C-alpha cells in the first residue's frame, strides 16, 4: 500500500506544477484585463503589425 505515498507525491507535484503555471499567468498580467484579449482574437491578421503580444 505504501505505493500510495509515491502516487500522492506525484499527484501533488503535478497539481503544484499547475499552481506555478497559474502564478506565472497572473504575474504575466493575464488577469489584469479580461476584455481586450477576447476582442483581439477576432481581428483579421491583415494589419501590418509587429506586435507579438
Amino acid at each position: 500500500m505504501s505505493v500510495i505515498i509515491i502516487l500522492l507525491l506525484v499527484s501533488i507535484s503535478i497539481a503544484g506544477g499547475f499552481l506555478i503555471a497559474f502564478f506565472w499567468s497572473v504575474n504575466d498580467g493575464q488577469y489584469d484585463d479580461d476584455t481586450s484579449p477576447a476582442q483581439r482574437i477576432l481581428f483579421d491578421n491583415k494589419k501590418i503589425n509587429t506586435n507579438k503580444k
Partner: protein
Amino acid sequence: MIYDKNISHQKTTCFHCGDECTTNKKISIGEKYFCCNGCKTVYEILNENDLCEYYELNASPGIEQKNTIRKDKFEFLDNLEIKQKLIQFTDNKTTQVIFYLPQIHCSSCLWLLESINIVDKGIIKATVNFTKKELFITYNEADTSLRKVVETLTKIGYEPHLSLQDIDSKEANKTDRTRWYKIGVAGFCFANIMMVSIADYVSINNPVEYKIKIFFSLLCVVLSLPVLFYAANEFFIAAWNGIKNKYLNIDFPVALALVITFTRSIYELSTGTGNGYLDSMSGIVFFMLIGRWLQSRTYKSISFDRDYKSFFPIALNVINNGKITPTEISQVKKNDIIQVYSNDIIPVDAILSKGNAKIDYSFVSGESLPIHINKGELIYAGGKQLDGLLELIVLKEASQSYLTNLWNNATFTKKQKTKATIYDLIGKYFTYVVLAIGFGSGLFWYMLGEKTLMWNAITTVLIVACPCALLLSQNYTNGNILRIFGLNKFYLRAADVIDDISKINHIVLDKTGTITETKNATIKYTGNQLSEENKITIASLANQSSHPASKLIVDFLNISNLHHVDNYKETEGAGIEGWINEQHIKIGSKNYVGGEYFSTNNGTKVVVYIDGKILGEFIISNVYRIGISELIQGLKKRFKISLISGDNDSELKNIKNILGDNSEILFNQSPQQKLDYIKYLQNGLLQKVMMIGDGLNDAGALKQSEVGIAVADTKNSFTPSSDGVIDASVLPKLNVFIQLAQAGKNIIFLTFCISAIYNIIGLYFAVQGILSPVIAAILMPCSSISIILLTYGLTEMYARKLHLNK
C-alpha cells in the same frame, strides 16, 4: 414638459460617430455623410492609411469631433520637465508612456489604437488595456516625440486625458494581484487536503496503515500552513485592526474560528484522536476569498476620486515680454499674463485683459447659460472659455483659487472613517452568542465531569459557528448586484455603497446637468405669426449680439440672408435694439421692451417688438432629461426629495410641477451652501441623504452625503469624486436601482437565516461534543455552495422582476 430639440430636419447619421447630421451644408465623401468636419478629417486620415477596417468592425464607432483642437495645443509636451512627469520610462532612444483614453469603448477602438504605428511610424508598439482604458505606447525618440504621439492620437479622435492628478499620483496606478495568488494557493491546498482527507473518511471500516496515516496527516498540516498564514492573512489583519480600534468586526469571529480550527486539528492529528478539520478550514478560506474578489471587482476605468486637478489643463501659455512659453500650472504665478483658447478650462482666478470672454460656468456653479465678461472683470477658475482667444492676468494661482478653496473644506480633508457596517454589528453579537453557547456547553460537560467532551464541545462549537456564511452571502450578493448595476451603466465605487443606498431616506437633486441636459436649451415662439420678413429682421438684429439668448434665437430662425442693422444698441442684462429697413426693432425683457409677457410659461423670455407693436416672445427653457418626471413621481412615494441648484430660479414653476409642493427647492446656492444643506439634513433632521449631482459645484455635497452619485452624460465625461457614477441615460431607473439594493439586504438576511439552519445542525452535534470532521466536511461545502447558489439565484430573480436583466 418639452422634449423636442427643434433643431433637425433630416435624419442622416454620421458615418464616423453615428450622430445625427444637423448642419444644413452636407459634409460628405461619396455616399458617406459626416456630422462635422472633424469626423470627416478622421475618416480621411484612416482612409489614407488603409485603416478603414475600423468602420467594418462596428458601425459608426467614432467619437464626435465637433470641438476642433487647435494646432499648438500640445506644445507644452515639448517641455522636458512636463514630459518627464508624464512618461513611464525613457533611455533617450525609446520611451514608454501610458495614456488614459476614456473614449475607448469598442473593439474598433482597440483595433485602431493597436494599429497606430501605421499612422505614426515612430511608434514601436501600442497595447490597449480595455478594462482600464489605457494605451501603453513604446516609441522611438529619433522618429517621433511625445507631442507627435499625442497629436496623432488626437488626430484620429482619441485625445488622451492628460491631467495634473495623473502627474501627482503616478505611483498609485499599480495593479494588485495578491488576491489572485491567494485564491490560487487556497484552492490548491483545499483540493489536495480534501483529496487526502476523503481517503481517511471512507476507510472507517478498513483503517489505513499507520505509516500512511502519519504521512496523510503531515501532508494535510503542511498544505494548511500556506492557507492559514498567507491566503487568510487579510482576515487576521482586519480582525486585529478592529480590536485596535476597540470594536469587533465580522472578521474577528472568522479569524477566531480559523485559529481554533487549526489548533484543534493539530491537536487531533498529533495525538491520533481524529482527522482534524483542515479541509473545512481551507475550503472556507477559498470560498470567502472568491466572494471578496467578486465583491471587489469594481470599475477600474472609472475614477471615483477626481478632484479639481483632473479637470484642469496641465500647462498654460504664459506671455512674457511678447514671448509665449508653455508653463506648467504650478509654475504660473500671480500677475503672469496667460493665454486661454476656445474650449479651454481656465485653471486660475484671473482678470480679463484682452479678448471676447464668454464663460461657461455650468460645471462649476450650475448656471445653465454662458456668461459674458467684460474687460477688467474677474473670471473664476473652472470656467470654460467658449469663444476665441483670451488674455488674462493671473490674480490667484491655481492652488489658491476660489474653486480650489472648496477642497480645503473639512469634508475633503478629513480621513474616511472605517465604517462599521451592519454586518460588523451582527458579527459582534454573533461572537458573543457563539462564545456563550461554546462555554455554556463546556461548562455543562465540566459539571458532568467529562473533561474531553468539554474541550470537544467548546472548540467544535466555535468551529461550526463561524460566521463565514454571513460573509459569503454578503460578498456574493453584493458582488452580483454590482455586476447587474454595471451592466445597466450604474457604477459603484465599492460594495459597501449598496448597503448605504439601501438605508437612505432623503434624495437631494441638482438641477443643471442632473435633471436637465447641460448642452441643450429649447426655444419656442409664441405670439402673432411671424412673417418671413419679420424673421429676417429679428435674426439680423439678434446676430449682432453675443448674448447666448440671441445666439439661440439666430439658430432657431435659421436665416442665411441677414440685413444690415443701423443704430445698434445693447443694454447689458436687458435687451438689444436697432433699425432695419426703416423699422425700429427691440428684443429683450418685458421692462426693456415695454409690455407684458404673452404666456405664463416658464423659462427665460425674450419679447419681440417691431415698429411700435409687440409681436410675441421667445421662451428659452431647459431641456429636462427624458423620464425625469416619472422618476421623481416614483421616488416621491418612498423618499423625501429636495432640489438644490446653483442656477437662478427661472425654472421654478416647471420644477414645482414635477416635484410637488412638499419638496424643498433652493436656487442660487453656492457649492458651500449645498454642502451645508446636506449637513443640515443629516445633523438637524437626522436624514440619510443621497445626493445626485454632476458638476464640481456639487463635489462638496456629494462627498458629505451618505451616498453621492454623479451623473455622466457620456462615457468620457468627467465626474467629480463620488460613491457612484450613473450614466445619464439610465437615471430614470434610479428608483429601481435603489429597490435592488434594498432587495439585496433582504437576500443577505434570508440566506443568513438558511445558513443558521446549517449552523444549528452543526451545533446540535457540537454541544454534545460529537462533531466529527466528516460531519463538518459535509456541512461546510453544503452550506457554502447552497448560499452561493441562493444569493446568485435570488439577485438574478429580483433583477428580472425589476427589468434590469438584459
